[in-house]
């Protein structure tokens, strides 16, 4: 993974100094709340319900074991010994003290980490496929360009105060796993007909209050131009995006208002001036950064391992874990492993300091000292030998990190919600936990099969509810918490936004509602169909009838 040189280190060190002074000025009363707000936000610090929340950047989800150990230490020293991995692949601390944040940032800087631009109206952390570099369907490993974009976007002076937040995702696989269509800019890498790395540029996607899937601004962009092309897009947005209404300020609203043709025309016109300007990436720079992302020193191994095969054959629990939580690898004899942070009955995406330490040890012992954060809020060991899977599973099980539920109903994506977040309309974690307890039978979960359930505590959609096969959105009605259900959302190449099922439900009804949705699916499915396929085939109506038909007999809350 990328390692800092003196220049990278100087920037995070200088940031610590700058932010320490900003915090001092705020505490001394030299900065008003309003003036300090964008400064702390651009350092990932929110003022929350109970305490501030600090969001630490994990660029495109990559972490070293040393970094994860440091995160665990920081959570122990400055927080309550746990952290929350977010859908932007970042780590959030829920209980730090505002006065301690400069010190925390100084600690992070010692392991080449920071919290720069993890919030605020600026370019946020770049996100990527958690299997970048190891996925069999990968055409191009996008991490070197992602790192170059990270550096370019860090303190980009022209885009320091945009109308609203700005999120970029990169993907270089046949099957998109980075939800590029749900980003302000999505960069889809491919090999063009001359076998050169090219980019299909998407813009104007985003979830939130007004969910919109992105449109293609440019089919073919040579990689050298990715920074100047992004500058053209963001400049058009910076000048013409709406600042008069925060709810209409994202680039998706501008793209929608102008239409993709006119928006693209303005971008192209702007780009004519920026094309070939000094931010055009050189071969030498790509090569320098790409050296940090070369293949791991794999052992030459056969595609099969007899000890592994016999463990799978003799141990059904291990076999289930292998099936759900390990993933094919480019290198024969290796697998990628997902360590589940979705233990039933616990807050999705949370890891304790102790678990972080243990996972760091796993990474050192089994996966070249590196790991990744998935946007589905799990941790990934990308390079594990087949022969190591069994011992790893045993240890992970002991640490509560081996629930065999990846891609299943209880692998819930969930924001911190009303328990922590001051933006939330409703709690989300207790809903996730109640559903996990309702579906605690693994065999039943396997029978239900692939199903993505996403929960957001408010329409800001941190829990990506619009693209969940089942989505749950917390809403506020006259001061009490209700939940709106959508079905038919999906991430990936054939991404779609879910359809609202009908009037919302009380918290205690939610496990029952999910149960009814599953009942319809189990009744209607063909042998090969996943939940999402059934919804797409038969539509929302049968689900709606089953859920509300029986509900009406009880009590109707509308």
């Amino acid at each position, binding site marked *: 993974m990328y*390692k*800092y*040189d*003196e*220049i*990278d*280190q*100087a*920037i995070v060190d*200088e*940031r610590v100094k*700058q932010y320490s002074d*900003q915090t001092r000025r705020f505490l001394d009363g030299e900065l008003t709340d309003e*003036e300090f707000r*964008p*400064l702390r936000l651009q350092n990932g610090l929110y003022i929350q319900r109970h305490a501030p929340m600090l969001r630490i950047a994990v660029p495109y989800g990559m972490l070293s074991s040393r970094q994860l150990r440091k995160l665990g230490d920081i959570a122990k020293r400055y927080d309550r010994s746990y952290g929350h991995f977010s859908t932007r692949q970042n780590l959030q601390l829920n209980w730090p003290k505002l006065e301690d944040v400069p010190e925390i940032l100084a600690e992070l800087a010692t392991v080449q980490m920071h919290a720069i631009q993890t919030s605020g*109206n600026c370019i946020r952390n770049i996100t990527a496929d958690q299997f970048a570099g190891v996925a069999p369907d990968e055409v191009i490993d996008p991490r070197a360009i992602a790192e170059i974009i990270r*550096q*370019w*976007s*860090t*303190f*980009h*002076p*022209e*885009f*320091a*105060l*945009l*109308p609203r937040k700005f999120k970029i995702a990169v993907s270089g696989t046949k099957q998109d796993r980075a939800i590029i269509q749900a980003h302000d800019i999505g960069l889809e890498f491919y090999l063009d007909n001359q076998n050169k790395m090219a980019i299909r540029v998407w813009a104007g996607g985003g979830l939130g209050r007004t969910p919109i899937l992105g449109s293609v601004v440019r089919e073919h962009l040579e990689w050298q131009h990715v*920074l100047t092309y992004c500058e053209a897009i963001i*400049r058009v947005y*910076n*000048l*013409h995006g*709406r*600042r*008069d*209404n*925060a*709810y*209409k300020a994202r680039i998706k609203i501008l793209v929608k208002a102008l239409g993709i043709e006119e928006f693209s025309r303005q971008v192209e016109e702007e780009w004519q*001036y920026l094309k070939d*300007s*000094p*931010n055009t990436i*050189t071969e*030498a*720079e790509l090569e*320098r950064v790409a*050296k940090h992302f070369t293949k791991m020193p794999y052992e030459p191994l056969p595609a099969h391992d007899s000890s592994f095969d016999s463990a799978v054959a003799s141990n059904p629990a291990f076999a289930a874990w292998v099936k759900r939580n390990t993933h094919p690898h480019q290198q024969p004899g290796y697998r990628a492993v997902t360590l589940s942070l979705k233990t039933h009955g616990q807050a999705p995406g949370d890891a304790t300091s102790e678990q972080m330490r243990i996972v760091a040890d796993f990474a050192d012992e089994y996966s070249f000292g590196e790991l990744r954060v998935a946007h589905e809020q799990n941790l990934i060991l990308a390079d594990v030998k087949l022969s190591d899977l069994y011992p790893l599973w045993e240890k992970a099980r002991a640490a509560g990190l081996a629930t065999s539920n990846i891609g299943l109903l209880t692998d819930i994506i969930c924001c911190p919600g009303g328990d922590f977040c001051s933006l939330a309309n409703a709690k989300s974690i207790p809903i996730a936990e109640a559903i996990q307890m309702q579906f605690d039978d693994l065999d039943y979960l396997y029978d239900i099969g692939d199903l993505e359930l996403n929960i957001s505590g408010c329409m800001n959609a941190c829990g990506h509810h619009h693209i969940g096969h089942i989505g749950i959105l917390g809403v506020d009605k006259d001061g009490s918490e209700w939940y709106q259900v959508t079905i038919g959302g999906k991430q990936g190449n054939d991404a779609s936004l879910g359809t609202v099922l009908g009037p919302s439900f009380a918290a205690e009804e939610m496990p029952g509602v999910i149960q009814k949705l599953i009942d319809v699916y189990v009744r209607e499915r063909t042998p090969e169909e996943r939940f999402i396929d059934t919804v797409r085939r038969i539509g929302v109506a049968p689900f709606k009838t089953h859920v509300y038909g029986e509900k009406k007999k009880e009590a109707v809350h509308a």
Partner: protein
Amino acid sequence: MPNKSNLILNNAIVDDEWTLVTMPVVEEAVKKQAGKVVLFKLTGEATHTAEQIANTVIPCSGKILVPLSVWMARREELASRHTAGELGIWLDTHELLEDLASAIGDINSLPLIAVHVERFADGRIFSIGNLLRTRYHYKNDLRAFGDVLRDQLFFLKRCGFNSYLIRADRSAEDALASLQDFSQPYQGAVDINQPVWRRVNRQPAPQ
């Protein structure tokens, strides 16, 4: 005692030689969107009446910094001041640079262009500075004024500004220091147009 100047020009605090000309204030109706007061004007939104422009009082001597819309409407009257090098133009962040460019033959005949930022969070000022320097090739003094605070100065400098009138209740001395916040920025911008990889031979850090 004279008022201390809060004007930074090229890394030093200097006295302001320019008289800021503003339009007579008129009562503006409070606009609301989604229940919230609208704080920012839309790019290209017309905000001044002909009456305001006509009633703008222009000092008859000395260097004057005149609103763009006043210049556009009263060019003939101001032509001699322009020729004498006593005329600068200021615009708001929602005004269009295209209007400025078409209202002046040679942009470099202006010794000063100033951009007024009503609220510091209005990042349009950065694109405006960048475009003035790179698209319109403006070479003379470029000033930010209004809600100008030290924590935005580094970005303003990088976008081509060389002068900053710090908000009256804040210290210009303190603000000066922030221009040095970062020693080696990553990306090329207006002040240093080469990105770091073209300026420095980057070596891997010792582990």
